[in-house]
C-alpha cells in the first residue's frame, strides 16, 4: 500500500529500489519517535476517550520497542493543550489499557492485525510501522529514504476522531472520509 514517488525512474525502482547500504535504523526510529507526540496536537478525541479533563494523552507501544528510549525523550515534558503526553509499554494487547494512541511495530504482524481489528471503531489512533501490510489510522512508510505517513481518515471517523486538515495536508496520502 505504499505510494511512492511518481518519477518513472523511481517507479521502476519500486521494484528494485536502489538504496545505498547505509542502514541507519537508529535514525529511522528516532524520526518515528519524534513524529508520535507531534501528531497528538492535531488530533481531537471525543471526550469519552478520557477519564477526566486532566487525564494525560497516553502513547502505548505494543510488543517490542524499536525506539530504545527515544520515544520517552521525544515525548518527555510535552503537552497537548492542558493534557500531558505520557508513554506506556504493553507486553500484549490489553483492551482495558487507556491508550489514546497505539504504536504497532512490524515485529508481529498477527498481533498488529488483531489489535487493529479490536480497536476498530474505538477512539484510539492506531499507528502502524512501515513494513506492516495492515494499516492503522496512521501508517508510517519509507518514501525515497524519508519517513512519511499515510492517514486513513475514514478509519479515524469511525472511531469518532477528528484529524486536523493541517496534519492531513502533511500526509503522504490520505484515505478520505466517506470512502469505502
Amino acid at each position, binding site marked *: 500500500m505504499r505510494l511512492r514517488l511518481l*518519477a518513472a525512474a523511481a517507479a521502476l525502482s519500486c*521494484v528494485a529500489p536502489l*538504496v545505498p*547500504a*547505509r542502514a541507519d535504523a537508529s535514525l529511522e526510529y528516532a524520526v518515528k*519517535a519524534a*513524529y508520535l507526540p507531534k501528531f497528538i496536537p492535531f488530533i481531537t478525541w471525543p471526550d469519552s476517550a478520557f477519564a477526566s479533563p486532566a487525564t494525560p494523552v497516553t502513547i502505548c507501544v505494543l510488543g517490542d520497542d524499536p525506539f530504545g528510549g527515544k520515544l520517552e525523550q521525544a515525548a518527555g515534558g510535552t503537552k497537548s493543550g492542558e493534557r500531558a503526553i505520557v508513554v506506556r509499554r504493553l507486553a500484549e494487547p490489553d483492551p482495558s489499557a487507556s491508550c489514546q494512541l497505539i504504536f504497532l511495530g512490524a515485529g508481529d504482524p498477527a498481533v498488529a492485525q488483531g489489535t487493529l481489528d479490536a480497536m476498530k471503531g474505538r477512539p484510539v489512533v492506531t499507528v502502524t510501522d512501515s513494513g506492516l501490510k495492515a494499516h492503522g489510522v496512521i501508517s508510517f512508510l*519509507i518514501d525515497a529514504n524519508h519517513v512519511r505517513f499515510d492517514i486513513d481518515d475514514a478509519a479515524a471517523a469511525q472511531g469518532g476522531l477528528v484529524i486536523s486538515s493541517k496534519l492531513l495536508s502533511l500526509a503522504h496520502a490520505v484515505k478520505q472520509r466517506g470512502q469505502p
Partner: protein
Amino acid sequence: MPFRGIRWGLGLLLAANLLPPGARAQQVASADDVQELSIEQLANVEITSVSKAPQSLSAAAAAAYVISHDDVIRSGATSIPEMLRLAPNLEVMQSSPSAYQIAARGFNGSSSAQNFPNKLLVLIDGRSVYTPLFSGVYWDMQDVLPEDVERIEVVSGPGGTLWGANAVNGVVNIITRKASDTQGGVAMLGAGDSYSSAALQYGGSFDSNLDYRFYVKDFYQRSFNSAAGTTAHDAWSKPQGGFRVDWTVAQDLVTLQGDVYGGAEGQLNTPNQTIAGANLTGHWQHRLDDDSSLQLLAYYDQAQRNVLNGGGFILNTYDVELQHNFALGSWNNIVWGAGDRIYDYAITDRVAPDTSLLWRPGHRVLNLADVFAQDQIPLSDSLQLTVGLKVENDPYSGISPMPSGRLSWQVAKDHMLWAAISRAVRAPTPFDTDVVEKLGTVSFLAGDINFLPEQVTAYELGYRGRISDSVTLSISAFENVYDDLKDIEPTPVTFTPLRWANTMQGNVHGVEIWGSYKPTDWWRLDAGFNIQHMDLSFAPGASKLLGIAQAGDDPHHQASLRSSMNIWDDINFDADFRYVGALPDPKLPEYVELNARLGWRASDTLSFSLSGFNLLHSQHLEYVGGDQIRRSVYLETRLRF
C-alpha cells in the same frame, strides 16, 4: 559529438578521461537532533530504508551508488556533470566549459574516431536525455537546480532489462524533489572568477492536495584556455525555467513537470552555437485495492541545436510507458509494462568547402516499442532471485532481447552478497546508418544501414554491507564481454568511403569499491576506488584501421576521498579530492584535484557558501584535445522567503 561544432578529424586517438571523486553519504542529522525538528521538517530527514525492508536492499543486486540531495548541495556543484563527479563508479571528464565526456566502466569514446561515450543511459524523472541521433548525451542541454535534486542513482553495469537500449555500461537516474519538499521561496545569487549565476524559485500549494513550484535561472561561464594556452572563446550562458505540480488524491498521484531553455556557446573563430529545448512530462500512479499499482508516464521533449555553417537539428520525442506492479501469490512480485517512443527529427546538413556532414535522409520518424516483465522471487528468507526480460523493437536492427538474472543473498543482517548476469545493447542511430562525411568533394565516411547493435553480456559479483555502526562498504567486480563493437572499415580497393562496422570485440573487467566512515557525529569520510582492464581485439578480417583506441581512452584506475564536516551548528566544510589515472592512448598524464566548500547558515533565511574548484593547479587537462580546466572560486548567497 557531431553537433559540437568543432573537431572533425580523422586520425585516431583522442579522448581522455577521468574520474570522479568521492562517494559520500547522506545525512548529517543525528538521531538526537531530530526531536528538535518540526513535524514538517521530519518528513525531510533522510534515512535509509534498508533495515525495514530487506527486500529492497537485496533487490538492489547491482553496483548502485546514490548521490543524495545533501551531497549535491554540499559539493557546491552547479551542473549535472559536476554533481556526477560525486559518484565513484563514473568517469567524468570535462573538455570545455559546456562539454563533458561521462562513462561508466570504460568506453568514453574517441572524438577523432567520432566514437562517443555512448554506453551510459541518463534519465531525468524518467525522461530519457540520451540523444537518439548520434548516441550519447548532450550534457550542455540538461540542467536541474541543485536545490531540486532529490537524489541521483548511479548504477554501473547493464540496466537494459528495466531501462532498455543504451544502458550498456550504466544508468543515471536523476530524480527531482516533490513540489511539497520545495515550498516557499528561494533566491540564489552567485558570483565567481569563472562562473556566475542567479536563480529564483517559489513553491506553494493550492490546497492540501496540490503542490507546485516554478523556477527561473541563468548563468554565465567564461572561456577556458585551449591546450595551447590561448583562449578557446567558448564562454556560454543558458537561461532556463520550469515548473512542477504534484496532485495527490487518495489512490492517485499525478505529477506534471516541464522545463524550457535556450543558450549560446562561443566557438573559436566562428559564430556562436545555439541550443534550445523544452519538455513536458506527466506521471500518473494509481494504487489498486489489491495492493497492486499502475503507473503511466508520458513525455514530450524538443531539442534543437544550430552549429556553425548552418548545420543543426531539431528533434521531437514523444514517449508513453505503462507499468503494472502486482504480487502473484506470496512468491512472486511482478512488474511488467510496455512502452512506445517516437523520434521525429530533421537534420540540416553542414556544407563547407573543406568538410561537410550530410545526412541521407535528413528527416526520419523512428518508432521504438518495448515490452518488459520482471519477477522477484524469494527463494528463502535470505535468498532472492530477480529475473527479467525486456524486448525492444529497434527501428534499425529489429528485435533486441535484454534479459537479466540477479541473485542476492543476505548473509547476515548487515551483509549482502549479490551476483548478476545480464545482456544489454547500444542501439544503432542515424549517425551510424545515414551519415555521409565529405572532405572537399570526396565521400570520406559513410554510415551503414546494416550497422548492428553493440552488445554486452555482463557477469557481476558484489558485496554491500555495514561493517560497524560507522563503516559501510560496497565492492563490485565485473567481467563484461562485448561483441559487435563499433569501428571503422575501408571500402575494398577504393579505400574511401570509410564505413562504420561492427568488427571489434573483447572483454573488460574491473573492480569498484566505495565506502564511508563516520568517526563522529559531525564528520564523515567517503572513499572510492575503481580499477579496470580493457582487453579489446578485432574480429578476423578486420582492417584495424583506427586501432582499439577508438573505443575509448579510459583511465586504468581512479580514486577519490571526500570529507564532510559540520564544524559548528551553522557551518559546514566539505573537501573533495580526486585522483585520475593516466590515459593510455592518446596519452595524458594522471592528475589530482581538489574541490572544497565552506557553507554558513547565517540565519533561517540567509546562507552563504564559498566554493573552490580544481584548487591544486591553475589549469589542468582532463581530455586530450579538450580545454585546460581552470581553478575557480564561487561565492553564493541564498535567501529563503
